[in-house]
């Protein structure tokens, strides 16, 4: 059996070399493995299922966390990884080969809360800082009431809910908070796990969503799709232009209308666009620029690149919006295609 597969692989390699750059026709037999961020998992699961139904390769996506995804790619045990935070220059230097970031969709972190009879809560960056750093501990605090004149805020303790596990969601939220609050930057900083001064931790986005929806007086940050699914009220956040913005797919996409760097490594939190929801981020697939490593076949290399090209194209992006992720703006999709075209197998570009 093993020999047969090897033979097949060799045959296809030879064929594709001789054929001179026709699209590999037999992607169906390839199984790709990928691992990483939990944040875009609902999108990836649905999109990959659809893709393999349409004749693409079968893709096993392990949602094991961004950090573990990066580790898996570094150990070269996956075809591609996925991460919510782009790799730092130091992390890139640690990888055994040049790594390319492909943005796949836009996700947002929302502030969900559970207050009897209260919806449409408005929060400023200053209030977020004061609530999450436990300077404000009561819901009817004057500072909250001043921004929310129409709301009947109860005399109730605030319970902050955060992620107990290391997470890209925490990274995106703390990246935003560090940009808007020097105090936050000094005390907690940016990271996948933080030293929270108060509150309770929930495991995973489902844990945070469950805790908020089951307990009055709670406030916490979580992925938009989880708050949406559980019908948790979400706060309007004042963005850098001073507008209170409701979290919607449109306000997320607005945040992404920024100048794109060539390697797509950019955090779009606190976007300057006036209509932008400020706690928004790309999520990325990561893969090696040179796809011939650890005895990978040309076939899986081609399947990997084609999958990601499809994922950043219009078909898959429509799936993203159906599960409440915002689709990539035009320039990000184009940039992704340019990057994918630079990927090689034994020095030969895979996409022509």
């Amino acid at each position: 059996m093993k020999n047969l597969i090897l033979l097949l692989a060799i045959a296809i390699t030879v064929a594709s070399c001789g054929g001179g750059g026709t699209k590999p026709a037999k992607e169906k037999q390839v199984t790709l493995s990928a691992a990483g961020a939990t944040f875009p998992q609902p999108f990836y699961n649905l999109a990959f299922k659809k893709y393999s139904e349409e004749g693409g390769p079968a893709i096993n996506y392990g949602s094991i966390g961004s950090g573990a995804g990066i580790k898996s790619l570094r150990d070269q045990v996956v075809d591609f990884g996925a991460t919510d935070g782009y790799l730092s220059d130091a992390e890139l230097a640690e990888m055994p080969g040049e790594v390319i970031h492909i943005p796949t969709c836009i996700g947002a972190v929302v502030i969900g809360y559970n207050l009897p009879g209260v919806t449409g809560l408005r929060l400023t960056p200053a209030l977020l800082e004061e609530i999450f750093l436990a300077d404000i501990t009561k819901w009817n605090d004057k500072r909250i009431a001043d921004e929310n004149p129409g709301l009947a805020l109860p005399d109730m303790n605030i319970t902050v809910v955060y992620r107990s596990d290391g997470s890209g969601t925490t990274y995106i939220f703390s990246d935003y908070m560090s940009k808007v609050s020097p105090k936050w930057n000094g005390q907690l900083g940016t990271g996948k796990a933080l030293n929270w001064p108060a509150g309770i931790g929930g495991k995973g986005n489902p844990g945070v969503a469950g805790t908020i929806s089951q307990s009055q007086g709670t406030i916490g940050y979580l992925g938009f799709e989880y708050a949406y699914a559980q019908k948790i009220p979400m706060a309007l956040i004042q963005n850098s232009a001073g507008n209170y913005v409701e979290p919607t797919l449109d306000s997320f996409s607005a945040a992404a209308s920024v100048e794109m760097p060539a390697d797509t490594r950019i955090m779009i939190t606190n976007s300057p666009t006036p209509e932008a929801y400020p706690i928004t981020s790309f999520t990325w697939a990561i893969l090696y620029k040179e796809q011939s490593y650890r005895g990978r076949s040309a076939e899986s290399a081609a399947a990997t690149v084609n999958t990601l090209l499809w994922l950043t194209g219009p078909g898959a992006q429509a799936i993203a919006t159906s599960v409440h992720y915002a689709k990539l703006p035009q320039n990000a999709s184009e940039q992704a295609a340019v990057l994918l075209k630079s990927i090689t197998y034994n020095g030969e570009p895979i996409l022509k």
Partner: protein
Amino acid sequence: MSGDKVTKALLFLSSLTILLLSAGIVLSLTGGAIPAFREYGFSFITSTVWNPTSGSEEYGALPFIAGTVITSLLALLLCIPMAFSTSLFIAEYFRGTRTAGILRSLVDMLAGIPSIVYGFWGFYALRPLLISTGLTDQGFGIFTASIVLAIMIVPYATSLSSEIIAMVPSELKEAAYSLGATRREVIFSVIIPSARSGIVASFILALGRALGETMAVTMLIGNANIIPKGLFSPGNTMASVIANQFGEADGLKLSALIAIGLLLFAITALVNAAGKFIIRRFA
């Protein structure tokens, strides 16, 4: 003759595997924990700061050690009356009756319920009950976790205790009855003294189980990396922090988590050794 040899070799090999496995666990845990202990030394165990933010990284295990020890001991304390009276009921008062049989199967069934189901029960049923007492805002914390832990370890303590109590020779009991002892006197003067070491051992076994319990605790303890300030304060345990943070950990943080694993291993080993000592000393 050669069949004997084969059996002997097989048995030797399987016991050797167990030995090698335990040694391997200790070795790999120690190896992984070295960077954390090299960085912090003994203060890793005494420090209360757990700050994973890169740049100001600092890891101390005391909040988790405290959380583990407090919840486990509290669970043991809550478990003792439940398990002790249940095992007396099964093995002495209603010994051999249908009621005892049903009760025993129910207790065994408790042991088979997955941890996460206990977590759900605690989350959706116990927590609202505690909130309604007004003692706690959200119902997450040490006390909630301990109650659920106590229920989870009851079957372990009960099944072993009842076996031991049933093993007390009937001659002893009959002798006591013939001297005019009441049932209560027989229990406290004959059964408990002669089954003492076994009963203690069963509770130590249950304690060991409580120390390592993860999922149900994670769902209920609040996952705050601080030393609990009171019964209703949130906290975290060693097993729970490992389960929570392992996925995204690398470098020093990964080493700190492995070091916590090593400490948990050591604490469990100590508890077991204490159990063995008690059995030998007072048997």
